[in-house]
């Protein structure tokens, strides 16, 4: 810890402008690259990356920051998609339908969170997994087989608008995660993750902090579902409830780095790009590879790419120091 603090001081003037500048460049690239290339598959690829950033980051807020492993993220995503699409198709202005999707996901999350959070983390995981599965089964049995946009909507369909909405959401989700980490609330949330009993003993209201993280997480997951419902011309209404959405969120966060801001962003880019390649060549078998990759990351390299980068940086700094010592 001591060593890290020292290296941070020496590097701080460098980092102070490097990181914000890098982020601004990245955002500008995200805005202008698809516009310059202007190909359908590039728009689509960028859309998927942004959608998955929101998906991963929203899971990260709950699991990475507050330490509450949810295995039912698909439930929030699915509710967001269902509510947004239903309201939108019934003539509600899209913006209102979109927000309603997020709010509906929060309401649902509270129904599960309030009883299960009183107990240990495993119950919450089971509860969320259960809700997601029950919703999926109920949705596939009661909803119409397929949901298609109306003719006029298809005629004016514009993928670019969808992409910029997804980009906005990815920025908003990451921004919310950043704001949360910067706020005094983050101390309570991180304390709950590190040691629930110690947090309770020092006066942190554990349940309230868990619910705060859950409501943020489910809100953005619901909005991500709304974006998905906005983008898909026609789909099975039960598709957004598929447990694969949960798995994708987990995998993305773990590839990048659980509990870090940059993790889900890096993870989403890596995941979407690799998946598009694998899906072409291996079709169904690519899920097996992702499953094995996920298990390996959790067991062998739980820090993900962000930690790998930190380690690499440490090694290079150590080398630098050694060189300085030699030259003295």
């Amino acid at each position, binding site marked *: 810890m001591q060593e890290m603090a020292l290296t941070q001081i020496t590097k701080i003037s460098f980092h102070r402008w490097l990181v914000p500048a890098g982020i601004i460049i990245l955002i500008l690239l995200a805005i202008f690259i698809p516009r310059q290339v202007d190909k359908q598959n590039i728009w689509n690829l960028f859309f998927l990356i942004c959608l998955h950033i929101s998906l991963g980051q929203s899971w990260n807020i709950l699991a990475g920051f507050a330490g509450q492993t949810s295995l039912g993220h698909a439930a929030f995503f699915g509710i967001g998609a269902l509510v947004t699409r239903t309201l939108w198709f019934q003539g509600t202005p899209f913006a209102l339908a979109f927000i309603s999707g997020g709010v509906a996901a929060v309401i649902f999350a509270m129904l599960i969170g309030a009883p299960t959070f009183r107990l240990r983390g495993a119950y919450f995981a089971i509860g969320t997994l259960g809700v997601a599965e029950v919703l999926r089964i109920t949705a596939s049995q009661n909803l119409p087989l397929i949901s298609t946009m109306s003719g006029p909507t298809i005629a004016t369909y514009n993928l670019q608008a969808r992409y910029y909405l997804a980009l906005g959401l990815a920025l908003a989700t990451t921004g919310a995660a950043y704001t949360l980490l910067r706020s005094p609330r983050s101390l309570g949330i991180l304390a709950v993750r590190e040691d629930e009993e110690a947090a309770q003993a020092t006066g942190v209201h554990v349940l309230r902090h868990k619910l705060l993280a859950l409501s943020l997480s489910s809100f953005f997951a619901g909005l991500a579902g709304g974006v998905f419902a906005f983008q898909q011309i026609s789909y099975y209404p039960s598709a957004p409830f598929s447990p694969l959405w949960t798995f994708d969120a987990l995998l993305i966060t773990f590839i990048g780095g659980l509990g870090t801001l940059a993790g889900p962003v890096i993870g989403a880019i890596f995941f979407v790009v690799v998946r598009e390649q694998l899906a072409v060549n291996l079709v169904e078998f690519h899920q097996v590879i992702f*499953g094995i990759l996920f298990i390996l990351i959790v067991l062998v390299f739980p820090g993900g790419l962000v930690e790998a980068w930190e380690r690499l940086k440490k090694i290079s700094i150590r080398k630098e120091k050694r060189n300085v010592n030699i030259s003295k």
Partner: protein
Amino acid sequence: MSIESFLQTLVFGLFVGGIYGIAAMGLALVFGVMKMLNIAHGELVMLGGYASFWAFSVLGMDPFVSLAIVIPALFIVGLVLDRTVYRHIVRLLGEEKIKNSLLVSFGLTLVLQNLAQWLFTADERAIQVAYAGEGLNLMGVTMPYTRLGSLLIALLVTLGLNYFLHHTYPGKAILATAEDFEAAELAGINIHRVYMMTFALGAALASIAGTFVTVTYGLSPSIGVIWTLKALIVIVLAGTGSILGAFPAGILLGVVEAISGAFIGATYREVIGLVIFLLVLILRPQGLFVGRN
């Protein structure tokens, strides 16, 4: 609803509950002894189902007889999974162990499900035995032999497991490890072997459930999650840590589901289990069947 159809619903709930019980018992065993939650338990049920399906369609074996092959087969699968994956998790402690087991087994769910889809295709399979339509008829209540046989075997397995755990040395070693693994290790028990055997035993129990599922309902690679969920609900009902309590809790869930399903419609039957799950967590988090010891 007439008395007869009510009794019929009740009896079918009992049969389904027997399968729930046996599916949950394997998971409860692993949870109680290894202190980790194996979300991929339903996938083991699914694999057991395929084992009995292939034994039936290739070797022409009666599904109840094929248990003699299916159980050892899944026992070996359990050994392999423990050696390759779960061995790394069981070393961890407390909350971290639970969390990692949830994550890893969730990943394993995906792997096994997609492997099964790749190997066996996504087609729905079922076993049609010659005596499928036949059964006992008691006071207007039909009891098909396949379901009666499943319940009977489930009951025998529960009693057998009870005897094994409480009256044999390997079983007592398992219970001792469940109670306090450090003390068990100090007493000379090889706890890693106990963990390995426990997991394999859990997989073997799952395979029995899988055989019954194949005989009663049908089989596809995606059934795993549903069975994991049923097993988890049953475990919460029984009280975490109660291994044999899973059987009565399973029966209870089966009966409650069947009766409420008859009143509010079968499409919402899955919701009932979850509502029960949440209610039990709120009102009686220690479970319904937890004894004094």
